[in-house]
């Protein structure tokens, strides 16, 4: 595996690993790790670093919805143009073009259900290319970013064993 891929594998699991620890885990030296991170960021492989948040546990937390969007394209308007317009809204947390029954899957983050509804009905639905939206509010999150949301440590192994 090349250095960038090894560093990427570590960061994808825990973006807070510091350079020395990544170096220790990969067997690379610290300078090589720093170079790999620069390259990953510079090449647009790594776009940022964020916490995996369980918003249900945050007072005045946020609500998340997955919105299916269907669009109608014409000579001047392709998926790129529509995506670009949708993505500009700060409430849009993630935007994917998907295969299947609809065109875009949009993850929207808002203060509450009304907030999200207003955003969809007043900002997204009226866009000329958009023909249909279906909004799914997320009721409960069990796993996100590869991390299971559950309470603490359930290591029930014997503390010392042969």
């Amino acid at each position, binding site marked *: 595996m090349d250095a960038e891929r090894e560093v990427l594998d570590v960061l994808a699991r*825990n973006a807070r690993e510091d350079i020395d620890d990544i170096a*220790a*885990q990969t067997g690379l030296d610290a300078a090589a790790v720093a170079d790999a991170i620069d390259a990953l960021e510079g090449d647009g492989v790594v776009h940022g670093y964020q916490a995996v948040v369980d918003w249900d546990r945050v007072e005045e937390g946020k609500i998340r919805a997955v919105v299916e969007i269907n669009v109608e394209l014409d000579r001047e308007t392709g998926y790129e143009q529509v995506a670009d317009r949708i993505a500009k809204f700060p409430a849009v947390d993630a935007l994917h073009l998907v295969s299947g029954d609809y065109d875009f899957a949009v993850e929207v983050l808002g203060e509450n259900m009304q907030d999200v509804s207003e955003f969809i009905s007043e900002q997204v639905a009226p866009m000329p290319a958009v023909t249909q939206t279906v909004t799914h509010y997320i009721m409960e999150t069990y796993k996100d970013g590869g991390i299971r949301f559950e309470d603490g440590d359930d290591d029930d*192994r014997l*503390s*010392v*064993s*042969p």
Partner: protein
Amino acid sequence: MRISDRARTLPESGIRKFFELAEARDDVISLGVGEPDFSAPWAARTAAIDSLERGKTSYTANRGMAALRERVAAHHKRYDQSYDPSEEVLVTTGASEAVDLAFRALVDPGDTVAVHEPTYISYGPGIELAGGERLTVPTRAADDFALTRESLEAAGAADADLLVLCYPNNPTGATMTDEQLAEVAAFCRDNELRVVADEIYAALTYGGDHASIATQPGMRERTVVVNGFSKAYAMTGLRLGYALGPTDAIDAMNRIHQYTMLSAPTTPQYAAIEALDRCDDEVSEMVEEYNRRRRLVVSRFNELGLDTFEPGGAFYAFPECGGDDEAFAEELLEAQGVAVVPGSVFGEGGEGHLRVSYATSMRELKEATDRIAAFVEGR
């Protein structure tokens, strides 16, 4: 009740004391655990659940389900091992049963069984229960705890009847290359030693594929290979292992097994079939994670001045602590709440070392090594 001499005189495991010391506290980070911190792959667990729902709760064939033996034989091709699933594979209740059966099938009263040390703690008692006599062959830190022809000769193993070989090794994490095994194999052929090769950590190697002594010239017919699902597939509690060997040895082991165990438990056999069919990717991910932890732990111990050779397998590092390893481990537990196992528990050659298991999350490994750093500085 009167207890047999045999049971009464079996020594208590040195692990026990540290288990009790560690259990007495509730703030302990344990680097003393000899099993994976992962759970068995979910696909394997669902196969077990599904088998129960379908009412698959009867005995299996003595040797284990044919479908499982076929997959085990196919799986071992990756180690260049070739065994006939109908006659040369025996599924057992954990690799532990396979080791016990091998001793009982291969050792006559008074036979000498050579065991390299430091090593896993069950071989000695197993040999004694089979009526054999253990001959200790110390391996050396200078050899990174690989077994050498020189060590075998020095210990007088030329007169032994059987050799127990455990690589990748618990507690050292040592592995052996084909070249190193060739030397040991030549010694075994020259002196007509048979071999029980406990290869339970074969899937957990870093930077090189597992090498088995059974693939050395002339060794297949004199070697019983023991392996299982506990370590690679994180299935320790499901208790499923197996032995691979020439027909005469597997027949003899099965003769004992059919009376003492009848068959290995059925539910885990279904889990194991699924594990072999579908869980290679998960094993690879576990190996990659162990490898990252291994590098971190080895580099941190070396930074602390506790010299640690680079272990090629299993999930243990074996740093030198200098002097009395038991005192070091006890004081470390007392002062910093970190549990490690003193190397001397694993026999001759282990003294002055600690067994550090990295089958623990990265976060705990970092916290534990920080605490060990504080302990070493304050000492």
